[in-house]
């Protein structure tokens, strides 16, 4: 499927790589947007990769929209021949699944849910044919995820699990969005996981909470001093189930300035990954938990 381009007004170009989500579509989005950034066209003011599409914003006083489109197509054709390999990092995110805060919140908004008689986790496990919440949590946390987009609000990662399509978890969003979601809720909508960077409205199902802040406009949290947003598109995430004690310890460590996220640098190759997904993912897990 060829990329479909459309002007967004007179100062954006929107490019749909594919209507459907896939890791291949995401990699095209990532490599083209990387090439656009590297081309350093001064009229370009925003370069935004997304799940299966991307968008650029430009100054039409400096470049004619049609010239911008031609330039983008040229960059895309060059980037298409590049190997799908990126230097990135894997990050371990501790998650307290089925925690009391998201549970309290989901109970408050039960009338907006598809199944008012079960929790979001129970519902998601059932419609994805898992026999228990535990086996659902195992599938959610065992294989890693790609951060395929950062946005909606500041620093919020959308994540797509690094497994075959038939193993992808799919869950509808709430029937009507909630007006409240606890900060750092680990959520799910469509085929995407997310972490709510700030408290606020939301429509994703709520599975748990992480003690690890991912957005800090004050830049007072130790690992966010250099930059206030933790995630970048292309990051790899592995969830680690934790209990209440570990959660409390995590929160205390963040407050004390001693929390250190587990991060490992790696070079990711889409071909290598696809030739042995479980083995590749196991290695990522060992990198994070091993050394």
């Amino acid at each position, binding site marked *: 499927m060829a990329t479909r381009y*459309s*002007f*967004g*007004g*007179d*100062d*954006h170009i*929107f490019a*749909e790589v*594919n*209507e*459907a*989500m*896939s890791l291949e579509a995401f990699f095209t989005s990532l490599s083209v*947007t990387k090439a656009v950034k590297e081309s350093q066209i001064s009229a370009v*003011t*925003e*370069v*935004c*990769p*997304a*799940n*299966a*599409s*991307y*968008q650029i*914003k430009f100054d*039409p*006083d400096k470049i*004619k*929209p*049609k010239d911008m489109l031609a330039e983008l197509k040229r960059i895309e054709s060059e980037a298409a021949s590049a190997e799908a390999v990126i230097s990135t990092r894997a990050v371990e995110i501790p998650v307290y699944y089925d925690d009391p805060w998201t549970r309290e919140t989901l109970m408050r908004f039960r009338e907006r849910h598809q199944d008012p008689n079960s929790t979001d986790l129970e519902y998601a496990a059932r419609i994805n044919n898992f026999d228990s919440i535990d086996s659902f949590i195992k599938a959610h946390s065992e294989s890693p995820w790609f951060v395929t*987009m*950062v*946005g*909606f*609000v*500041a*620093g*919020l990662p*959308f994540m*797509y699990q690094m497994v075959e*399509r038939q193993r*992808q978890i799919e869950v*509808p*969003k709430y029937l009507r969005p909630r007006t409240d979601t606890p900060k750092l809720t680990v959520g799910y*909508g*469509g*085929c*995407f996981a997310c972490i709510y*960077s*700030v408290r*606020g409205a939301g429509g994703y199902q709520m599975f748990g909470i992480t003690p690890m802040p991912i*957005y800090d*406009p004050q830049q007072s949290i130790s690992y966010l001093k250099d930059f*206030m*947003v933790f*995630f*970048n*598109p292309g990051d790899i995430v592995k969830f680690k189930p934790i209990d209440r004690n570990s959660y409390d310890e995590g929160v205390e460590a963040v407050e004390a300035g001693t929390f250190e996220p587990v991060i490992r640098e790696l070079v990711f190759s889409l071909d290598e990954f696809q030739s042995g997904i479980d083995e590749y993912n196991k290695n990522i897990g060992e990198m994070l938990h091993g050394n």
Partner: protein
Amino acid sequence: MGIRVISPGLATSVQDLGRPGYYHLGIPISGGMDRYALRCANLLVGNAENAAVLEAVFLGPEIEFTRNATVSVTGANLPPKVDGDIREGWTSFDIKKGQVLSFEYLQAGARAYIAISGGIDVPVVLGSRSLYGLGALGGFNGRTLQAGDEIGIGEKSGNSLAARSVPATLRRMPGSPAELRVISGIYWHRITEEAKANFFEDTWRVASEADRIGYRFQKGRPLSFIDRKQPFGAGSDPSNIVDSCYPYGSIQVPGGTEPIVLHRDAVSGGGYCMIGTVISADMDYIGQLQPNMEVNFVEVDLDTALAVRHERNSGLQQVREIE
């Protein structure tokens, strides 16, 4: 120090021309919703066009000055007063230390820009002083103004520039009904031919959910989508797509009922398909729309959008040349 807030108005915030470059991380450009009015306000008091000003929405603040300054108020017709005496909008005037700036009730438009010589001096965050409220970022302490806030003003350059005025012909405001020109596209092909025609034919009204993130419109006929098997990951509603970026000014219609036009504090992406985008030159007008006002969306092509943008830029050039 420079000003003390006696009463804050409704949602008065510090804004400049915004914070480009971080939209890929979900941090929107922010900045004045009516950028033209913001630039004019700064030019009138001798500031750089990008200096930080106060954006007041619907209701003006009451501010005591703790030093002398030149001030201008542009955008909405929200008549300014100095110690109770009316001053003219779009025209600079002097305020002395100890005097109080307040406002009459709103007469037209929605957002007024209050420029103070020297500019509002709050910390620059990621290249801008603009408030991004959802992210508690920038502005004065990451929030809108509150009573008792004491806010610094930058060093003013040169002498008083009072009594400079933008001529009436260059005071840009939306008409009634307002016309918002749109380039259709992005996922325009997802709605039916009938819906396409209705969208431009119907007169819409600004809903009460109208803020810096986006404006919602109602009273037009619902838009129907073309049936399809939803692509993997797109979600079940026909208005859903695989979550993507949203252009500023893009028009999404969740469930096909009420169009939403995203503005300067836009959510940067999501899963609702966009049927087109308001042209860049008309974005300022949205910032001046009040709830319940009538709006027509008018389809234009790219060349028209660029011509209108050029015309707007020439108007600004004339303001720059005012002595």
